[in-house]
Each structure stands twice: as C-alpha cells, then as structure tokens.
C-alpha cells in the first residue's frame, strides 16, 4: 500500500475540495459525535438527579457510580473475572463444538438433515427455561454455568460455519476432483478456508451471546447463592438497594460486551483483510 499523499488543496476544483473536506469531517465525526451524545446523556442523567432531588438508592448520580466503581473495585473486578472465565471457556467450547459439528455435517447431507433440527431445538428453547433441568442433572456449579454459556453461544457458530462449508465455488470442487483430492484435502485446503469469513461472523455474535449466557446462568443459579460472578453482585446489590453498585456492575458488563465485540471484530479483520470483500476499503 502506497503512503497516503496529501492532495494539494489549491489545485483541486470546488467539487473535489468539498468532497475531501466532507471525508475529513466524516472521519472525525464518526468518533466525536457518538462521544458527544454519550457525554450529553450522562450530563442530562446527572441534571435529572439534581433537579428532581432523586435519592441515590433510586437513581445514583453518574459521579457516584464512577466512585463506586473505584471504591468497590476489588469486589467488582473479582466478580468480573469469574464471569469472564465462564464467558471465554463457554466461547471456546462453542467454537470447538460448533465447528466440530459443522465439519461433521459437511461430511454428509444426511447427517446434516438428521441432526440440524436438534441444534435448532436447543437454540430456540429459552436458556432460563432449561436451567432448572441442568440444575437437577449437573452438580458442579462451574459446569452448570459453562453448559448454559455454551448452549447459547454455539448455535451461531454452528449455523454460520455449516453455511460457509457448503458455499464453496462448484468449479473449485470440480478442480479438486480433477486433482483426485481426498475428502480430507478438500476440507482442509478448500472448505475450511472458504468457511472462514462465515465462521468469524458467527464468532462475533457468539462472543456477545456467551457473555449473556454466562450472566443469565449466574442469575438463575444465583438463588442457590454459590455464584460469585457479576450477576450475583447485581442481585445482591438489588436486595440491599445499593443502586450505585448495581449500576457499576451493569456498566462493567456492557463495557465487557463491547470490548469482546471489538476484539473479535479486530481478529476477523486481521484474518480477512488480504482477501475477503468484507475487509476491503471502499474505493469509490
């Protein structure tokens, strides 16, 4: 990629100069605008608390929440770590299970037709409704939570990877046949790389879902009082009317979700940037 040359503005006609300015504004605005709106919203939140004299156990001011995040850091971040552990383990298992099943499905249409409905059933049944059953059958607390995170996260990976493994250029398959490629060679050199963009799309969705699965599982399990993740902090804070800590935990969960999404987006971009359409820079 050649270094970006700064065009000489004086030599551009009015239309091109306007276009260039527009692009520069857009580059800055993309970050600045959401930030400004966010700050304005927080300021409004603060003002509403002050103007209406709302007590902090109903709606704490943003400053108080921020302070709680600092003073309760040890407690909150410890819990975050517990939740993160479940999230990532769940996601890892979802990747292994999702990709593994997708590869199995790709081996034969019959296998796919026979077993895909089970995956759908698992996906459409609300995890909250399944949990009591898991609670009966599984003793280990971590295993319970993991199973929940896995059930929620594995479906997008399975369905996307299956789609990817099946959407290979027919001519390329013919080419592999002409070379007398084995099934394994076809999978390794053709189907898996072709499925990569689809898999990564599924992974982005699954990352967020795994966090949701972990938190929801803790919520449902929380009543038994053994969990120490962020969800149990929220329940606990709710019982004690400790709204600032509740808000702090909530913010921590959201931020974690955003970070997971951004990291997975970056990973996806780095893997696909050289060849896939989705990672190409728009050229007018």
């Amino acid at each position, binding site marked *: 990629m050649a270094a970006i040359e700064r065009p000489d503005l004086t030599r551009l006609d009015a239309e091109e100069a306007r276009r260039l300015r527009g692009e520069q504004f857009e580059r800055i605005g993309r970050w600045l605008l959401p930030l400004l709106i966010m700050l304005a919203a927080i300021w409004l939140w603060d003002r509403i608390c002050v103007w209406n004299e709302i007590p902090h156990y109903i709606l704490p001011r943003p400053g108080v929440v921020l302070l709680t995040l600092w003073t309760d850091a040890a407690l909150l971040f410890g819990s975050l770590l517990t939740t993160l552990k479940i999230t990532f383990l769940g996601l890892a298992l979802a990747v292994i299970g999702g990709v593994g099943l997708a590869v199995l499905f790709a081996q034969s249409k019959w296998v796919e037709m026979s077993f895909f409905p089970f995956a759908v059933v698992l996906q459409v049944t609300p995890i909250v409704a399944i949990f009591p059953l898991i609670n009966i059958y599984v003793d280990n607390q971590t295993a319970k939570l993991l199973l929940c995170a896995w059930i929620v996260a594995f479906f997008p990976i399975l369905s996307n990877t299956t789609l990817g493994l099946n959407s290979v250029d027919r001519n*390329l398959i*013919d*080419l592999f046949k*002409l*070379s*007398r490629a084995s099934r394994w060679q076809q999978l390794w*050199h053709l189907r898996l*790389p072709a499925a990569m963009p689809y898999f990564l799309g599924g992974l982005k969705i699954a990352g967020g879902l795994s966090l949701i699965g972990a938190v929801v599982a803790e919520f449902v399990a929380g009543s038994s009082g053994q969990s120490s993740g962020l969800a149990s902090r929220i329940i606990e804070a709710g019982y004690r009317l400790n709204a600032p800590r509740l808000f702090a935990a909530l913010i921590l969960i959201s931020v974690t979700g955003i970070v997971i999404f951004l990291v997975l987006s970056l990973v996806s971009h780095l893997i696909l940037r050289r060849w896939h359409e989705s990672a*190409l820079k728009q050229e007018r």
Partner: protein
Amino acid sequence: MLQTATATSATAGRGGEPLLVLRSVGKTFSTGVTALDGVDLTIREGDFLSLLGPSGCGKSTALRLIAGLSTPTSGALDWNKPLGDDCIGFVFQEPTLLPWASVFDNVWLPLRLRGVSRAKAAPAVREMLERVHLGGFEDAVPRELSGGMKMRVSIARALVTKPRILLMDEPFAALDEITRFKLNADLLELWQDERFTTIFVTHSVFESVFLSTRIVVMAARPGRVFEELAVDAPYPRDETFRTSPEYAALCRKTSGVLAAAMGEATDGGH
C-alpha cells in the same frame, strides 16, 4: 523461419496419434434434456481443437465428459492410455482461484494435492509463472490482480502438472477484447512451445480460427457435431495472421458453417 513453419504445420495437421476417441457419445440429464447425441470425435496428440457453437449445443457438457466430471449416458470415451493422475488440466470460464491463497500457492495447488512439497514444487511453479508473464507476482493475492492476470494464473495452474490434455471452457469470454487478444496470442505462444493437446470451447469464430488446428462446429437441440473444419494456416500465428486475407477468408467460411448449424437447429425445432 520457413523451416519451422513447415515443420510445425506438419504436426499441426492430422498427423498426430489419436489420444482420445469419442464413439457416439450421448448425454441425457435426469431432467430429460438431451445435451449431447451421437458425438463422434477423434482428438489427436498435439491438436488445438476448438468446439464452436451456439449456447446449448453441449460444448461444455462434452468438456465435462472428457474431464471425467460427468459420465456419458451412451457411447464411450477411449483413451490411448489409461487415465493416470496427471492427465487433465482444466481452465474454467471464471479464473476460479482460491481467493485466500497467493498466486504461488494457487499454482502450487494441483501439485500440493498430489503430495509435492512447496520446496519441490517451487522451480516448476516459478517457471510456469514466468511463462505466463507473471514473474514477480508470486505473493500477490487474486483480488490484487486484473481479470486477465487472474486468467493467466488459472492457465499456469492448469499447465503446471504437464497434463496430457488441456481443457478450456470459454476461458476468455468474460474479458475485454484487448485483454482477450493478448491472452489468445500468449496462449498460442505457450502451445507452440510445447504442443500440449488442447480442447478449447468458445462461441467466438475469430478466436477459434486464430488459435486452432481444427474447429468442430456443433449444433444445438440435441447437441451434436455439425461439421469439422481444418484450419490449415501455418504456425507460428501472430498479429500479422489476424489481419491477413487468409484469416478473413477462414473466418468467413467458419461463420458460414456456424450459421448453417444454427439454421438447422432452428428448423429442427419446428
């Protein structure tokens, strides 16, 4: 110059040993469509054979049968030697490259699938890339290349295994005319060097006359051989040939046969 011309035209004619004989080959799909009916065709060593015809005349079906990607409903294909691993090079209408793999890896692919390591394959791959004028592009990925360059990679990939026969299915149909002319000339240059037997499917009269030793004009519904034409112009052919009266006359003759083939197909349809 004259000597090479006579020497090449001697092999260009009907002198080569039969490589493949199609004996009343027919193909009917499960949908009931008869794509090919009673096709008799002899492909000789060193032939550059063009299959020319309107769409629906079964040119591509014939190519797939020869490649072994499909089996005939009736008749037989007799090869002079049993088919081994390394006999067929195929160039599709689209470049059909692995988008995630570099130019080098794309050309290496057929060797790689036969268990040839990267280091062992490297000399052959590099030589092939030089010969299609893509030396220095080893590390580019397909999307960084133009349509013509992608097609060159595809040709290099088909030839890197030194196939017994090269099958090309309207390879240049999607390219602009300037690029197509250049690729025609370059393909012919490669062929003149090695005389690999080639079957070239096209719907362009001009392309078929410029390239071929023989043109098989096909008619549609059902797909069948309408007439075989020998192109007796000597090789090497270049841009001078393209502008010669001889070329124009051959094109006119071929166009006439094609028109007759299409006229008959329409009559047969009634």
